[in-house]
């Protein structure tokens, strides 16, 4: 997280830590974790943890470890042999079904899925919060959870972004309406190691603060500028159907 602050897991109880590759995810149910497809691509048995602000090994031993029963990558995700040259992050979304249900509490609880109405399609300027143990301005990885608040930006801002690094050809990347562009202000952004975590937006229909996962951290060109997030609203039907068809392992 660039431009953020240290946070406690109680601020982001849905935050899931993927240890290898280091990434994030969002708990959406007792048995299901939502993450980016590129996080679990090629890794059918990710090891995950919830409930700890710190990902120091000694702290993780005390946290709840989650074991994957099965990984469901969105069928629209483009499978590549060489992921290093990926320019198409469309449908960067995946579900991890867990073997055992997660016990909820103050440091572990799910984030809501967006509703189907347009109210849950965040407009430009809408603020969202992100969290993760990814790269910061000072360190490639961090031990303590960091968080930041950033606004939704026009997708064009991401498309038109021109960095200093001439090796990055933005125009070669695919941009679709399955993506949300956010950030661009004061260096606040997600970065490597944060992918799969939720871009959480406050539910407009609730008086008390309640967050839904508007986006999932997907990719970007330079940390501290704009970032592209998978638009979760477009996948709610797929998510619900996948969950419904597969149920919970204990019920099978």
């Amino acid at each position, binding site marked *: 997280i660039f431009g*953020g*602050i240290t*946070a*406690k897991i*109680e*601020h*982001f*109880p*849905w935050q899931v830590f993927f240890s290898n590759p280091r990434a994030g995810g969002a708990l*959406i*149910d*007792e048995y299901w974790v939502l993450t980016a497809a590129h996080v679990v691509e090629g890794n059918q048995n990710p090891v995950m943890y919830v409930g700890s602000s710190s990902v120091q090994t000694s702290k993780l031993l005390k946290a709840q470890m989650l074991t994957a029963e099965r990984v469901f990558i969105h069928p629209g995700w483009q499978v590549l042999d060489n992921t290093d040259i990926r320019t198409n992050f469309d449908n960067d979304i995946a579900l991890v079904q867990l073997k055992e*249900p997660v*016990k*909820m*509490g*103050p*440091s572990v*609880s*799910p*984030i*809501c*899925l967006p509703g189907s109405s347009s109210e849950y399609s965040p407009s430009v300027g809408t603020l969202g*919060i992100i969290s993760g143990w990814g790269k910061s301005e000072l360190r490639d990885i961090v031990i303590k959870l960091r*968080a*930041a*608040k950033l606004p939704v930006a026009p997708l064009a801002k991401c498309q038109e972004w021109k960095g200093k690094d001439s090796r990055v050809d933005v125009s070669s990347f695919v941009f679709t309406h399955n993506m949300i562009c956010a950030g661009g202000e*004061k260096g606040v952004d997600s970065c490597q190691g944060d992918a799969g975590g939720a871009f*959480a937006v406050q*539910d407009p229909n609730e008086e*008390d*603060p*309640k*967050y*839904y996962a508007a986006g999932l951290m997907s990719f970007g060109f330079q940390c501290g500028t704009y970032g592209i997030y998978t638009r979760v609203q477009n996948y709610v039907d797929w998510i619900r159907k996948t969950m419904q068809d597969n149920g919970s392992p204990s019920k099978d």
Partner: protein
Amino acid sequence: EPTMYGEILSPNYPQVYPNEIEKSWDIEVPEGYGIHLYFTHLDMELSENCAYDSVQIMSGDVEEGKLCGQRTSKSPNSPVVEEFQVPYNKLRVIFKSDFSNEERFTGFAAYYVAVDVNECTDFADAPCSHFCNNFMGGYFCSCPPEYFLHDDMRNCGVNCSGDVFTTMVGEIASPNYPNPYPENSRCEYQILLEEGFQVVVTMRREDFDVEPADSEGNCPDSLIFVAGDQQFGPYCGSGFPGPLSIETQSNAVGIIFQTDLTGQKKGWKLRYHGDPIPCPKEVTANSIWEPERAKYVYKDVVKISCVDGFEVVEGKVGSTFFYSTCQSNGKWSHSKLKCQPVDCGAPESIPNGKVENPESTLFGSVTHYTCEEKYYAMEDERGGEYRCSANGTWVNEVLGTELPKCVPVCGVPSELLKGVQR
């Protein structure tokens, strides 16, 4: 040794009897005989009440006579001057003289013979209950036809016991009815009907005439009915004192008619019939009897159904009804079975929630489920209340028998992130 006759003479008879002498003779004839004692000579000093000289005749402690003075025969054809006749077989004769016999009295001469006693007539108490037959030296009793002589050889009775009545309707009367019943008898009858029927005895007041009770209320002659552990009676008197209809509740009834020696009356006559034994119509809570009747009798079968929410439990099996049969003893079969409230048992627990421990788990009881707030909430908020239903399951009006689900509350962090923006 008893003798049939004998002579008694005063001392020195026929010479002058001595002064100051007392002599006695014990006369004994065989049993069954009386004694005829007669004097043919009596010559003794006369004094008032025979105080000086006397001959005294004693029967036990009773003085039969005391003689003194001179006697002569009143009949020219008989030498007897004085005689005694006693119905007993023993007498004592006592002769006494005082200090002077100056006129030279010669005393007495007496004879005795055994004479037959008519036991049938000579005594105040009749020795036989019916017929008395005297013979020389004794008597014997005899009885009318159909009577027998008891072992005491004095009393007659009748052989009236042993009849067993098995027909469903019948009439029984005391011996000789309406003529006087026999004395000193014990008649035992039995009414024995098939199981499941009770003997009902009916007696008209005028058909009963038995020697009435004494001043202490004891019946000298009595009629008693015995049915199992129950006894009806004893009854006696003129007119039946008991209920006109006696429901004995038993298929076997003993009739005992006991008479004493005296006071024979007309006797009694009863009728009986068999009634199917009734079973009580028991009002048991929370149950319905089919068919509904005012009275149930032997072999009737009823279906006893429990009202909603109640069941009968036999062993480990519960049912909503059972059949009961009116038995021959007047009791219902399966009478221990009762309709009791259905027990739903302890409600099942649910993950991430809890169920309150209900005060009762019986039909109609209510329990509530709650989820572990604030991290879980009930999937359907109407699914908290469950009621123990008639079929023994906990039921929610929305979810039915399905248990409520506690689902995680989403999107609400326990702490809010603040002050991120600068």
